[in-house]
């Protein structure tokens, strides 16, 4: 049936190089109307490069792009939009202080005066047609992540897009929000749009996609029909060899209480309470997961324990000793290690312009004697780390800013682990990493558990949290809405806690 129609998108033998790096090599992709086409691939497989060419950000070095059967040469994103291609980026491109309607109208060409009424009518029709949830008069800064994304989708649909590219749209969503997005995607499919769906989450691919194209190392490996495939096959195509996709289940005896937090209160710069009176504890040999929508107080909690953030009230006991008011350096020497991977990956913990040696030095130089820094032992450590964690870098003296995200993260985690911490706080350690590396990191975390150390793991992927952690603490708006045992909890139940519903009764509030 599909063969008779002209495909919405045909990308033929696309090649794109950056300097000596071949990002895309002879890639072919075909997307039809009325289908959801998933694009799978590890980090650096070339998905973003390919999509950036489709949306006019880059120009291919060779190869051709046909939209609805007509060859196109995009020189700017505007050309792509005019051809009906709408890209929804992970980081929304909205003006925070404007309302939804103003954001949609922004940059529209045409008459001097906008016929607002007519436009609003058209917008409302689109909202209706695709089941979007957008309050047109609301300011963007008041919107939730889900609402902002709906607005982004509305914006491109309003501009006439019938081909939508969604770049990891569910990365920071609760299961409920993802569910809503999937219903919208489904509507797009029935309305005859072509949807390209980029994601790392295999269950979403299996739930939503019609066909799947797998990219590896800049090349198209295969395009398969979902119904003829399986997660196992897809992962193997992606990674290039068979992999074991399960997190080891490590049993360890719950030891003594290592960290106890009592009625912790933290204010942000605007003197607003970002952590409201939370209490919890963690035992040795335990992995405590922290779930919650981004910005629920996770960052402040990490920083408070690490001694970077001022504590307004409450106590933090580490091995029986109150560490509130201690300096960051003292806390590091006590054996608490904190690694926080912010969205830009470099915000805290690493210095982008410095090389690997100088970055490892960051936590080592203070233990060295004298006025001078000694780079020699650190360089040896760096060499070993490159080997052990398979970090891809031209040399250990290469500014880490130019490395890929995954390698940067490996350096950060490698450094923290090399300090043999008793308590490891890891926030978003697998943010944006490819499947293989993710599992390497889960293994590292489990190793720590086996050694009897404790880990606070702040994560986004609920499946992983449930599999990896012993208990999960859910945060909402600076409060703890529940601490649950992972043995008998579902994703949906955690999702409910993430949006502020507290646990009923006296369930497991340790």
């Amino acid at each position, binding site marked *: 049936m599909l063969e008779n129609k002209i495909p919405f998108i045909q990308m033929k033998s696309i090649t794109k*190089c*950056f*300097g000596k790096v071949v990002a895309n090599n002879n890639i072919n992709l075909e997307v039809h109307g009325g289908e959801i086409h998933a694009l799978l691939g590890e980090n650096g497989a070339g998905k973003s490069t390919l999509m950036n060419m489709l949306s006019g950000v880059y*120009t*291919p*070095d*060779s190869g051709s792009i046909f939209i609805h059967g007509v060859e196109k*040469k995009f*020189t*700017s994103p505007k050309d792509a939009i005019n051809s009906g291609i709408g890209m929804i980026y992970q980081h929304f491109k909205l003006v925070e202080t404007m309302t939804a309607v103003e954001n949609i109208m922004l940059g529209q060409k045409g008459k001097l005066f906008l016929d607002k009424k007519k436009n609003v009518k058209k917008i409302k029709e689109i909202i209706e047609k695709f089941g979007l949830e957008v309050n047109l008069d609301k300011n963007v800064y008041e919107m939730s992540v889900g609402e902002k994304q709906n607005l982004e989708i509305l914006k491109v649909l309003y501009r006439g897009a019938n081909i939508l590219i969604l770049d990891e749209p569910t990365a920071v969503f609760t299961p409920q929000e993802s569910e809503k997005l999937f219903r919208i995607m489904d509507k797009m499919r029935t309305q005859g749009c072509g949807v390209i769906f980029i994601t790392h989450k295999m269950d979403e691919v299996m739930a939503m996609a019609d066909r799947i194209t797998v990219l590896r190392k800049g090349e198209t490996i295969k395009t398969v029909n979902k119904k003829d495939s399986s997660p196992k096959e897809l992962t193997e195509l992606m990674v290039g060899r068979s992999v074991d996709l399960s997190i080891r289940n490590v049993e360890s005896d719950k030891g003594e209480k290592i960290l106890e937090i009592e009625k912790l209160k933290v204010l942000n710069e605007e003197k607003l309470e970002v952590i409201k009176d939370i209490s919890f504890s963690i035992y040795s040999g335990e992995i405590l997961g922290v779930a919650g929508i981004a910005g629920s107080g996770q960052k402040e909690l990490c920083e408070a324990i*690490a*001694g*970077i953030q001022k504590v307004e009230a409450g106590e933090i006991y580490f091995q029986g000793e109150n560490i509130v008011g201690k*300096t*960051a*350096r*003292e*806390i*590091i020497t006590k054996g608490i290690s*904190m690694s926080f991977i912010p969205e830009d990956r470099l*915000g*805290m*913990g*690493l*210095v*982008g*312009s*410095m090389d690997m040696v*100088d970055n490892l*030095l*960051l*936590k080592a*130089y*203070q233990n*060295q004697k004298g*006025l*001078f*820094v000694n780079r020699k032992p650190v360089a040896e450590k760096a060499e070993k780390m490159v080997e052990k964690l398979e970090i891809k870098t031209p040399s250990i003296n290469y*500014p880490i800013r*130019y490395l890929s995200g995954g390698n940067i993260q490996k350096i950060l985690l490698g450094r923290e682990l090399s300090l043999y911490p008793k308590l490891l706080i890891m926030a978003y350690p697998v943010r944006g990493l490819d499947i293989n590396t993710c599992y390497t990191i889960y293994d590292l975390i489990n190793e720590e558990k086996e050694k009897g150390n404790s880990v606070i793991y702040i994560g986004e992927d609920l499946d992983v949290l449930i599999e990896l952690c012993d208990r999960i603490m859910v945060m909402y708006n600076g409060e703890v809405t529940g601490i649950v045992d992972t043995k008998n909890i579902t994703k949906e139940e955690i999702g409910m806690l993430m949006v502020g519903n507290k646990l009923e009764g006296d369930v497991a509030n340790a």
Partner: protein
Amino acid sequence: MLRIVKKSEISRRNSIIIRTTAIIFALLIVGIFIFSLGLNPLKVYTSMIEGAFGSDLKFKKTIIKAIPLLITSLGIAVAFKMQFWNIGGEGQIIMGAFSAAFVALTFPDMPKPVLLLLMAIASVIGGGLWAFLPAFFKSKWGTNETIVTLMMNYIAINWVTYLQYDLWKDPKAMGFPKIPMFSDNAILPKVLGVHIGWIIALILVVVVYVFMNFTKKGYEISVLGESEKTAQYAGINIKSTIISAIFISGGLCGLAGMIQASAIANTLSVEVSGGVGFTAIIVTWLASLSAPIILVVSVLFAGLLQGGSYIQTVFGIPEAAAQVLQGTILFFVLGSEFFVKYRISFNEDKVETTKNIKEGQ
């Protein structure tokens, strides 16, 4: 259509090529300008080089100009490495010179080595404190250091003007507003025909290089400059790092002031700084904050100044014209920084052309 693309990285070789091309362009443009004045550009250029490095005496003059530039640039580099924009080199030089002058005029009869050492210490403290104030305001109230350091230049200049006209006015100068000359003991000796400042400067190049690259404090300054959050995370004491870095920065500028007052002016006057505090900012930037490169750039820069004044007398070019030359060279070199960081790509219809541009670079 033109598009500006940020370069991810650039090899050392490419950046040298870009900067050299910029200088060649500048020389070409100025050449046209000189030609329009009715002179032969080639001749003017060669005599510029000759004027700067052509003879023993001329070379010494260039070195004398390079010394304060070099020391001040080293000081500014320390602050810039921490991303503290110290625009107050001028004021710090003057306050350093003032502190040194205070010692020199109070104890004129002290033995020479002791007096000079005391003057040097005083100048470092004077310049250091003058830089410390804006740093303190910044850490306490979040003031903008660029504005404060800049403003404090004028306070320093007017303070010395006041001394010159009133408080420290030399009664023997017949009403002329000047401060009394230093005693002979307060004047730096010469080594190989140039005052000993050149040796001090060379030692400082090594010291600053080692300090910034191999000491814990230097490392902390670099980390703090990149990200305060990361510094905090690593347990660096931010306040003490800021204070020590800025004190060193201002202290070095102050020392440059002492050298100028002692060896060149032989007294304190508002002219001791002579714009060095500002020129040094350009030198520091061009040398990308690296001590050894600062050494090279300040000598070349001093040569440009010296050569510029030489052609004024030889060719009768007005001073302003010589400054046009300096300005143009600066403009091109600073402008070339843009091409070091960005690449302009032409969006052509033909895909192949884009590819060629890619490969060509």
